């Protein structure tokens, strides 16, 4: 096993995650089990200020800290806002436009307009003579003088990073390596990226975009992280800063920039990692995570306590990043999604959103359109008093007036019914989107529990679970800091993909076994180099297969690294039948990829102190902070409101109830049973799996 990170393993660990709006921190003392939390506004210009601010708020003494794990959106924001470092491309003659042409698509099926900005502009994409064919044979030698000229030209144009991306370099990287050597002679820094190095797979557009993204965020990430490390060491911190990757693992600050593209999407991945960890401890290993924020909702799947990972994530239209990442899907609506009545006289929710600014009406920041959050406010699910801030007039009345005018009047229904309808339609659509995600990943949502987090997740979770036929909802102790928690519970992880692409009956199965072994060895070596304390090494083996002639792949998990060919065939056919209810004895199977993950499991954190035991009251009744009228499907209920931190350990209660806490509001519908486990998770058992649609409201329109 690896040696511990510091001579004093009894210190504290910090997980700090920068989100769009807030920077969250969890500090955990491994000896006293004391947990400190902090939430401060994200500092957009330099995220380090927010990070340091959070540490200050948590009263962290950096000299006492063992390890800091950091999730940052530096690279995500840079890509989405195209605030990238100037990057040049040297590529095969005839192919400089690959990054701009994409795969001939359009942003949406209907509507013949749209825009696309390539990651590197055309004037910084230069061609050199060279050519390798699909078999890896060089059919035109590399023009070395051309390479030198091109590199100089890009340097003169002010490029900081360089991409060398040649056709078929995955089959034979000689030309890319040679060109990189030549560029190194004049390039003033180490930001020289070869296409095959990050992703050795065919598909020139996807590989090219992946490496171009990597190159154009590399300097940004390096500068950011090194400045942060410097600041922290000034304050006495002596350890390394580990940075979260999108695969749910983490990597040392010294190495992170080299594969910077892997940090894009790391924020959502952290949340899923925390969910998997929490679920495993709670004995709920199959989860659908449901993270609803202000502008969007993210969904991911966890099977056997392991998040689903994909190598084919597209972070926005025509922006693929093909490295293994936790498969988090954005399914649209957030609390800020706008409701409207369309010209058919039907209520719609989304796709437009009031976003964070101006946001819902109830935020009092100038929002004028009815949103999901506003509907929650009207129906008593959110506490109207909290939104009655000084200086603003009566928000509740404003929200009610807008709902009346924009929704209730056109629909000729009561205002509150309109608000209920907004939630019902939003939930129906979100449930549909979650179903599509689960089906596309080959599972039935009813076999999973719903793990609800994010500011608005726990507010909608019971309704969604009911809609989806999901029997249980898990709301973690601190839903609002799930991503930060993910930082401190994340494992060390290295993923390997080897492409075989051969009919199964022609595969040399011994060679497959040897490949698995080689990957295990390499992964273990990388983990030991990281020098972080782990308690256990885990290995995951899987293969991607298809029937010959198909293009889609089906992943088959393996119990060992030594399957026989007959095992593979049988496991694949079983998986295929489970997924599609189709038996295809007529057709042979192809073995496409073999996947290995080496995971260094870190010491188990004790989650039971996430909610301070000292705050707990003796009875549920004593934790009650309020009673208010809340609207459910069958009408208004006088509903008790509890303060989460005051609820006794292992409480149990029946809905209707509302549980409020600093970072979220959890809604428990009439008849649902909520209990609390040792780690402070609320487990809600859904009373009825399917119900009739809410009773017809207010009759027909006139």
């Amino acid at each position, binding site marked *: 096993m690896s040696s511990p990170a510091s001579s004093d393993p009894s210190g504290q660990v910090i997980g700090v995650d920068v989100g769009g709006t807030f920077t969250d921190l969890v500090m955990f003392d491994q000896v006293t089990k004391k947990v400190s939390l902090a939430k401060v506004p994200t500092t957009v210009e330099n995220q380090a200020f927010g990070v340091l601010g959070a540490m200050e708020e948590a009263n962290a003494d950096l000299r006492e800290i063992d390890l800091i794990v950091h999730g940052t959106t530096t690279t995500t924001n840079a890509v989405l806002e195209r605030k990238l470092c100037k990057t040049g491309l040297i590529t095969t003659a005839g*192919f400089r436009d690959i990054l701009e*042409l994409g795969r001939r698509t359009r942003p949406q*099926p209907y509507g013949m307009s749209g825009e696309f900005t390539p990651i590197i502009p055309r004037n910084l994409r230069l061609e050199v003579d060279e050519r390798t064919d699909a078999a890896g044979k060089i059919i035109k030698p590399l023009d070395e003088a051309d390479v030198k000229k091109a590199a100089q030209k890009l340097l003169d144009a002010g490029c900081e990073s360089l991409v060398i991306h040649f056709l078929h370099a995955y089959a034979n990287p000689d030309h890319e390596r040679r060109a990189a050597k030549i560029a190194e002679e004049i390039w003033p820094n180490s930001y020289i990226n070869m296409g095959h190095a990050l992703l050795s797979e065919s598909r020139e557009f996807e590989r090219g975009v992946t490496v171009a993204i990597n190159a154009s965020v590399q300097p940004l990430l390096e500068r950011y992280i090194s400045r942060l490390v410097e600041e922290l060491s000034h304050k006495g911190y002596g350890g390394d800063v580990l940075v979260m990757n999108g695969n749910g693992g983490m990597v040392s600050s010294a190495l992170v920039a080299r594969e910077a593209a892997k940090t894009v999407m790391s924020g959502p991945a952290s949340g899923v990692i925390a969910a998997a960890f929490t679920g495993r401890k709670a004995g709920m290993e199959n989860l659908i995570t449901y993270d609803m924020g202000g502008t969007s909702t993210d969904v991911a799947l966890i099977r056997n306590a392991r998040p689903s990972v994909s190598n084919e994530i597209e972070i926005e239209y025509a922006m693929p990043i093909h490295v293994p990442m936790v498969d988090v899907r954005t399914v649209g609506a957030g609390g800020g999604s706008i409701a409207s009545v369309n*010209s058919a006289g039907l209520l719609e929710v989304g796709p437009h959103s009031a976003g964070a600014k101006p946001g819902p009406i109830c935020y009092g920041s100038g929002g004028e359109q009815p949103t999901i959050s506003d509907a929650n406010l009207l129906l008593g699910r959110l506490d109207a008093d909290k939104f009655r801030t000084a200086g603003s007039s009566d928000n509740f009345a404003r929200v009610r007036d807008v709902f009346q005018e924009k929704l209730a009047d*056109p629909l000729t229904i009561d205002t509150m019914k309109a608000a209920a309808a907004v939630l019902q339609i939003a939930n129906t659509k979100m449930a549909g989107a979650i179903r599509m995600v689960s089906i596309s990943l080959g599972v039935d949502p009813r076999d999973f529990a719903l793990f609800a987090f994010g500011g608005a997740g726990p507010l909608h979770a019971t309704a969604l679970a009911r809609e989806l036929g999901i029997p249980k909802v898990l709301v973690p102790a601190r839903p609002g800091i799930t991503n930060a928690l993910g930082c401190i519970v994340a494992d060390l992880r290295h993923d390997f993909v080897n492409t075989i692409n051969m009919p199964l009956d022609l595969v040399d199965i011994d060679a497959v076994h040897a490949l698995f072994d080689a990957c295990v060895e390499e992964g273990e070596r990388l983990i030991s180099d990281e020098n972080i304390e782990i308690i256990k090494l885990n290995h995951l083996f899987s293969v991607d297969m298809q029937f010959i002639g198909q293009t889609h792949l089906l992943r088959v998990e393996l119990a060992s690294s030594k399957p026989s060919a007959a095992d593979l065939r049988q496991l694949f056919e079983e998986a295929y039948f489970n997924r599609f209810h189709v038996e295809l004895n007529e057709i042979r199977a192809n073995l496409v990829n073999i996947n290995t993950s080496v995971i260094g499991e870190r010491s188990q954190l004790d989650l039971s102190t996430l909610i301070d035991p000292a705050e707990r009251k003796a009875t549920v009744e004593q934790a009650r902070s309020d009673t208010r009228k809340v609207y459910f499907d069958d009408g208004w209920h006088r509903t008790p409101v509890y303060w989460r931190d005051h609820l006794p350990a292992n409480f149990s209660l029946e809905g209707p109830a509302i549980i409020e806490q600093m970072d979220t509001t959890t809604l428990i519908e009439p008849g649902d049973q909520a209990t609390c486990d040792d780690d402070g998770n609320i487990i809600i058992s859904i009373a009825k799996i399917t119900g009739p649609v809410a009773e017809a409201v207010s009759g027909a*329109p006139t």
Partner: protein
Amino acid sequence: MSGKNNKSSVDLDPITLSVIQAGLQQVCDEMDLSFSRAAFSPVIAEANDRSDGIYSAEDGSLIAQGAGGLPVFVGTMQYSTRSLIERIRNGDTPAPMPDDIYIVNDPYLGGTHLMDVRFARPFYRNGEIFCWLSNTGHWPDTGGSVPGGFSASATSVEQEGLRLPPVRLFKQGKLDEEIYAIICSNIRVADQRIGDVKAQAAALMVGEKRLNEILDRYGDDTVSEAIVELRRRAAIQMRSCISQIADGTYHSLAYVDSDGVVNEPLEIRLAITKTADRLRFDFFGSSPPCKGPMNSVLATTLSSVYLAMRHIFPQVPISAGAFEPLEIIRPEGTFLDARYPRPVSGCAAEVSQRIAEAVFAALVVPLPDLVTAAPAGTSGNFALGGYDPDRSRDFVMYQLSGGGYGGNADHDGLTNGCSTIGISKAPPVEIMEQAFPVLYHRYALREGSGGAGKQRGGFGLDYELELRRGNATASFVMDHGRFGPQGALGGRDGQPNTVVISQSGKTCIPEHLSKEQDIPLKPGDRVRVQTPGGGGYGDPLTRDPQRVLEDVLLDRYTVEQALNLFAVVIDQKSMRVDDQETADKRAD
């Protein structure tokens, strides 16, 4: 607009309606997903050349259809289902039993081309047919004179492949092995088709299961009433969209290069008349039926108009109600209403896009903010079939390509977008070179191809490939070779499609420009294709000179083109806009 004027005939509240609408949509989307994920044909699995939907028991009219279906199928299956229902009523086709699935690909019975194979399954509730579930999948081959079915020179449908009337391929859930054997004996690469057949049938079963759940939950009567009411409301929604258009008649003209056999352009003449809240589409005066395969069957013609309207008003859900306010006069006597035995293999991929272009060209005038100038509008089908001696086997390769989209009120046109009627990705060069004995010399943005305009058209694609070994024949079914995609509101046309073939060092251009069949190639011979740029939108002289300069700095246009197309004078030394000279030039 509010719903205040919506008189409802039934006592259904709008919320239940919305929820049922979302539920029916979900059923179709799940069928689409299931079909694609299980399919073998890459055309279905990767290119999503398939569609799934729910159709009424009475007349097959469209109740709901998957959002991710290929756009060209937006209206076709309601016609194929309708013709099936009529045939059953007339006794021409045997009546169904539960769990039967009909297969049909006859273009004249509400179809497209032969390769689009439709399955239809009656959906029973309490012993009665409640509705039909149907899907279409593009099979890689259905026999005929050329692999893949896109003959550029067929003169009758028999040359295009096997034509199936509606027959029950599945009888009470069991595959009829005898019918299947007949099909397999008549198509190429038959051994993998069983996978697609099972995937296509399984998708309908997924739909049946989910639809039963919805009916169980909300009640059959409620759902029936909702279907009627949703149809009524979709019509209202389309009417309200139409009412933005000023009353009047809008004319347009679009050309198909040739029919592949007779080298003369085919004309699509369209007059769209807006009165009150209806649109009437009249193709009177369009060319008569043609000898080659560029005829369109009625269902495809209608569907092409619908898909164009959906591109303009994407917010209106796909439903028979949305089509109600669109009155399309049957274009009898023209090539847009082909009857047996006219060949039709070009209708789904090419003619449909010209029809959509005619709709865009007519409606961009009254709807300048919603409609774009003409997009490239061709699927760019280049097929190379031959023998690869290194692998000792025959091969058939397809290169489909994109082109520039039209400029529009908000943006320049998109570069290398997918065809108007498709949504599929083109395959990567590396994958093509792995699979086939070809070497690409270029896969690039086609400089200068975007039509000039205030917002210019997007750029087409410029690719060139070489046959490396063995022998092969090249075939093309493309379009817009004679005239480029039309500019709008003063914008110029995009550059037309070009095909150049080099055989033993000598170059030639196909006689029909964009269509040719079986051109023999030897190793070292090359094919170069340049796809159309999109039409420009608005007067090019009103384009911001700085944006013209930006395109020049990116080598998208030359300095000369900036001057000739946009009247922008760029100083070659400083590479800056000469404001004074530009102003003078533009004032002329």
